[in-house]
């Protein structure tokens, strides 16, 4: 285990314990700036943590970023670890970023599906769902990106517990989802919500469950264009952007459809590298480049959120 976040190896994949150790180190090094909030427990009893980056104020408008809801998408959790350190390095150094944190809080959930993530390290590297048991079925787990209360159970999700896109018995049945729902609703002032997946290089916005344009589509589309342009400026990595249903396929009960329905206008979901050479098995050598380019897109969305209050 690294002794400080300066010596932590950001260019390799880590276990849940190592990431939780990193979180504790980062909080210990920045006690006035960062706090660790436990928002719930998983089905198997693991704590679910969110890092809060705040320079003060009370219930400031906030930006939410989560990674790893599909546990096997390892580059996302690894990127979030890098983001966390980057936030501590850039605050006070980068004027544009400092302006964001001087006015808003950032919440970062690095391991959104801890049970699934632990399972990918111990038993099945390809696991993507939660680990909840389903009465009457020998199959395990629910797709936590089909379990939200937005078009729940409609097309693009499965009622078969053995399917990888099983939506669960009811919306919010998964504690990993319910914990976020409760947190977001109790907070009440989250202005941007960014859920990060891999792979296939996409930046997507609502809707996923229906084929109509979101009321803010024009602005969301323009902002997505700026974000992917910023991302590409570093290494030339090309991202497509658009609504979920038009850009990939129908997916109901997804995270950002729910957040958008809650009034969080800047609701986006990323699919990070690559376009299909390694898929979920992206070599660790690509973690830092992936995180660095993604950070530029995140900055674009965060700055826009700061400059366009609603």
């Amino acid at each position, binding site marked *: 285990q*690294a002794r400080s976040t300066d010596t932590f*190896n950001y*260019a*390799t994949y880590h276990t849940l314990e190592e990431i939780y150790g990193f979180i504790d180190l980062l909080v210990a090094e920045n006690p006035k700036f960062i706090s660790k909030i436990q928002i719930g427990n998983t089905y198997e009893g693991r704590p679910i943590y969110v890092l809060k980056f705040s320079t003060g104020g009370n219930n400031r408008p906030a930006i939410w970023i989560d990674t790893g809801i599909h546990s096997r998408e390892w580059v996302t959790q690894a990127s979030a670890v890098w983001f966390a350190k980057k936030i501590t390095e850039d605050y006070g150094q980068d004027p544009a970023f400092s302006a964001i944190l001087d006015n808003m809080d950032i919440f970062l959930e690095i391991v959104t599906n801890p049970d699934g993530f632990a399972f990918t390290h111990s038993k099945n590297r390809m696991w993507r769902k939660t680990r909840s048991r389903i009465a009457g079925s020998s199959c395990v787990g629910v797709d936590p990106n089909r379990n939200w209360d937005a078009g729940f159970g409609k097309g693009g999700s499965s009622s078969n517990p*053995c399917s*990888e896109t099983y939506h669960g018995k009811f919306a919010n049945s998964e504690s990993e989802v319910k914990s976020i729902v409760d947190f977001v609703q109790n907070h009440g002032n989250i202005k941007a919500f960014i859920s990060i997946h891999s792979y*296939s290089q996409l930046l997507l916005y609502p809707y996923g469950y229906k084929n109509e344009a979101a009321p803010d589509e024009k602005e969301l589309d323009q902002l997505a264009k700026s974000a992917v342009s910023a991302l590409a400026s570093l290494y030339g990595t090309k991202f497509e952007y658009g609504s979920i249903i038009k850009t990939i396929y129908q997916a109901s009960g997804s995270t950002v459809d729910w957040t958008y329905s809650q009034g969080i206008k800047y609701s986006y979901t990323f699919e990070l590298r690559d376009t*299909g050479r390694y898929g979920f*098995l992206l*070599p660790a050598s690509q973690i830092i480049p992936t995180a660095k380019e993604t950070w530029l897109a995140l900055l674009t969305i965060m700055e826009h959120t700061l400059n366009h209050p609603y």
Partner: protein
Amino acid sequence: NKDFVGHQVLRISAVDETQVQKVKELEDLEHLQLDFWRGPARPGSPIDVRVPFASVQAVKVFLESVGIKYEIMIKDVQLLLDEEKEQMLTSKARS
């Protein structure tokens, strides 16, 4: 740990809606235990699917029989997993 020896990831190119539907039929065949990394969406959009060793031949025969093109994206998933594990161990040893 679950063994992925011989599992392949195929990149399928469905050129029209009929071919997309054919791939969706594959998706419904539970006994093949296919794991869609990128699901069938629309013509021209790549479909990536992890195929267990035991199903590789059947899937390829099916795709070829209906004229759907594919290429092998990952020849053996376990080899990549072994490399990934090795990298993590090396990294730990160094630190």
